[in-house]
């Protein structure tokens, strides 16, 4: 079983539900590690359906957004599906300002997101 330091992984049916261990995704070194762990899900473990649950996340920087964009590209290249859910209002404001709410498929709740796969 692979150890993840920045992520907590669950499986619901054929969907991999990914939760973040950090409330604030800001530390530069942690973000680099986060990027490697997200990439591993797709490139090493070949997971095709990913749901990122942001319920624990209070804050994320543009560097963290960059890792999500890179993950999105990897998932698309592998012909998989990526959805995001439970993004808190202040964090969602960052997605709106950057218009990344148009790039990602964002659902309000985990149940709604799981039903959409």
């Amino acid at each position: 079983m692979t150890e993840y330091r920045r992520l907590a992984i669950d499986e619901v049916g054929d969907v991999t539900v990914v939760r973040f261990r950090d409330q604030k995704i800001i530390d530069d070194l942690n973000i680099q590690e986060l990027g490697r762990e997200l990439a591993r899900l797709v490139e090493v473990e070949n997971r095709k359906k990913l749901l990122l649950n942001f319920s624990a996340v209070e804050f994320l920087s543009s560097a963290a957004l960059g890792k999500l964009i890179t993950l999105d590209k990897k998932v698309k290249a592998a012909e998989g599906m990526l959805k995001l859910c439970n993004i808190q209002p202040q964090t969602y404001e960052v997605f709106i300002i950057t218009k990344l709410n148009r790039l990602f498929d964002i659902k309000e709740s985990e149940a709604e997101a799981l039903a959409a796969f």
Partner: protein
Amino acid sequence: MSEPRWIWQCDHVILSQPGAGRKIRQEVLRQLHQRQWAKHDVFSIHLALEEALVNAIRHGNALDAAKEVHVQCRMSDDLMQIEVADQGNGFDPAGLPDPTDHAHRETPSGRGVLLMRRFMDRVEFNEKGNVVLLEKRRTHPPEDPCSSDPS
């Protein structure tokens, strides 16, 4: 306009390495929490400071161990000012591509300056582009003072 009456100031020089700004970030957040700035103001300053520090360390000084980043913070009852200066070659902020443009939306970087401008009241670069001044006016009354952990 008269100079604001500063009630707190700090002045730090940090190395150009990832995470070097952590102590400054904690110090600024502690001051904002102690003085009960509104939650959204704290979020905005936190985000802009982080983006400015990463820009200076990673892009400005290109993680060069021989270069430093100078950070000055000033707070009055109504205003927070932060100046971040690196020793890099600078850049032209007007020349940055619009990261919200469809053509650049999938580019993983280039959103820091946009976020600084949207969350702060004033963002000014010097002519060379290696010093940025960030300014946030306090929201009154603090309808939702921040009470969470400042770390």
